[in-house]
């Protein structure tokens, strides 16, 4: 785990001149399954979005394996928050998953049989093959999240960013998602997840970043996931029992 997959230097992001992320330095080693945790408004989603260039930082730089994002798009997949899109949009589950292939196609070129095949494979991986022709508004919250995951899988990236993939999903979907994430890690992919549920951090992840406008700590879960860092991040006394 010597290689650094993502390196963030002095990243500062502001909305209307009010900083929401302040001078973030972050090195994410290749092959980790990392949670970003922090209270509401800590800038967790903002961090991901500015790393991916969806939001423009006012200072700082980000590199993926030493190169800027614009040169490394093919290596990176992004799963936005489920609520960020209009699920009444007239399209099917398969079509949404196909969108993951657009990046490798580039402008104008259309998806063909090859893209369809990999989309179907991804649907199968997340257990949604039987729903491929269903209109997306007819899917449950957990199923929609799995569609988003499948869409990231077809990108066949090296680094995955996910914004609260466990939000509002049922228990089965949560297990299905975490299994896929662990499978990605076994394939030496780097997975970065904005996560809300502190209880499951030690069970699901091996790396963690504490964030609250500033970076509080980052490192292996077994070393830094402790009451001290939780209290620094959440500002109140936190006691979690970490299962050994």
């Amino acid at each position, binding site marked *: 785990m010597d290689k650094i997959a993502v390196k963030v230097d002095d990243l500062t992001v502001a909305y*209307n001149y009010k900083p929401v992320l302040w001078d973030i330095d972050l090195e994410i080693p290749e092959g980790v399954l990392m949670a970003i945790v922090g209270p509401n408004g800590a800038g967790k989603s903002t961090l991901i*979005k500015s790393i*991916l*260039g*969806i939001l423009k930082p006012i200072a700082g730089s980000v590199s993926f394996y030493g190169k800027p994002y*614009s040169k490394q*798009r093919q290596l*990176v997949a*992004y799963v*936005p928050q489920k609520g*960020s*899109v*209009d699920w009444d*949009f*007239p*399209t*099917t589950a398969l079509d*949404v998953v196909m*969108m993951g292939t*657009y*990046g490798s*196609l*580039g*402008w*104008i070129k*259309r*998806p063909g049989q090859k893209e369809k095949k990999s989309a179907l494979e991804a649907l199968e991986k997340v257990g949604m093959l*039987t729903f491929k022709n269903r*209109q997306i*508004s*007819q*899917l*449950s919250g*957990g*199923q929609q999240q799995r569609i988003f995951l499948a*869409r990231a899988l077809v990108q066949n990236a090296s680094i995955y960013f996910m914004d609260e993939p466990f939000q509002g999903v*049922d*228990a*089965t979907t949560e297990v299905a998602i975490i299994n896929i994430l662990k499978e990605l890690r076994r394939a030496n992919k780097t997975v970065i997840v904005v996560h809300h549920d502190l209880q499951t951090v030690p069970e699901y992840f091996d790396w963690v970043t504490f964030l609250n406008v500033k970076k509080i700590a980052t490192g292996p879960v077994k070393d830094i996931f402790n009451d001290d860092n939780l209290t620094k991040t959440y500002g109140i006394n936190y006691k979690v029992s970490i299962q050994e």
Partner: protein
Amino acid sequence: MNSAQLEIQLIASLVAIACAIPGTFLVLRKMAMISDAISHAILPGIVVGFFITQDLNSPLLILLAALTGIITVVLVEYIQKTGLVKEDTAIGLVFPALFSIGVILIAKNANDVHLDVDAVLLGELAFAPFDRLLFNGIDIGPKSLWVVGLILLVTVSLLILFFKELKLSTFDEGLSASLGFSPAIIHYGLMSVSSVTTVGAFDAVGAILVVALMISPAASAYLLTTDLKKMLGLAISFGVFSAVFGYWVAHWLDASIAGSITTVLGLVFLLVYLFAPTKGIIAVMYRERQQQIEVSLLTFLLHLKNHDELEERHVNHLYEHINWQKVRAKSVLDLAQKNNMIRLDKNIVSLTEKGDQFTSKAIDYIMTNEDAQIEDMKADFFLFRG
């Protein structure tokens, strides 16, 4: 039907198609009002363009007017970004200001030419065939037909080339940005097409009808399909139908063509809104009623499941135990019997095996919210369709 009538219907139909395409994406992007803003705000662009070119169909005039359309969008977004006012307020601030500049310019400088506010608002399709385009001295058809035809050709080409990008950035801006398809480029591309279409259509059908042709067919199509390509196809069909049928309504009533087309567009939407199979108001009311009955059915089945005592399951007591009106009780009992969920034995109601299983599954689903086991029940019961 004489050739002038045919030409008018042809122009109206081409305008309808050219409007329905960007209109579909505006509706999906919840930006319908921006078309209203553009259609009014391009007036100063048209007037200034007319002063420079002295020709209402000059390409320069169309480009200048389209540029004003883009400026409108930029101004609206700029005001909105300050966070001081909401988007609809920003739209309401920008376009009347630009439109009134156009009105003043016309009043001061263009009183003696064919450029008046009435024509701008309502257009006059009836006059379109009189303005001919000559090529080497040969009459090759009405000018607006060529202008609109050219705009339509460009719009359709852009749609075919960038369909994938338009769909992606409309559905998920974030993914579009992260994959390298700049949502800003696509957004302004769409705004440019909307502006050019508006200008081109404007002379023929006027500012109000342009908006109707962009939004109404797309809104009707949205209620009828869950496929973007079909939505585009339906929007185009509704637009063309309204254009042609509206023309004949105007002919029979001896009324304004633009007004008649807009009326037909409104009626088409009304019919779709009422009768669309799944999203229509009647379908929704039917579904809500069915769901209500299904909830009652489930309550009833659960009551039977929870009570072994005979007096709790005696027909005569059911009304008072579950506290229903007789009318609803009858539809619930019918539904239960139709599905073989209950049997009646000497006035005692009991669950069949099927009814028992159904109840367990349904309760399980309601408690865990896990879809997997109830997929087969979705076909028969609205309740489980989410």
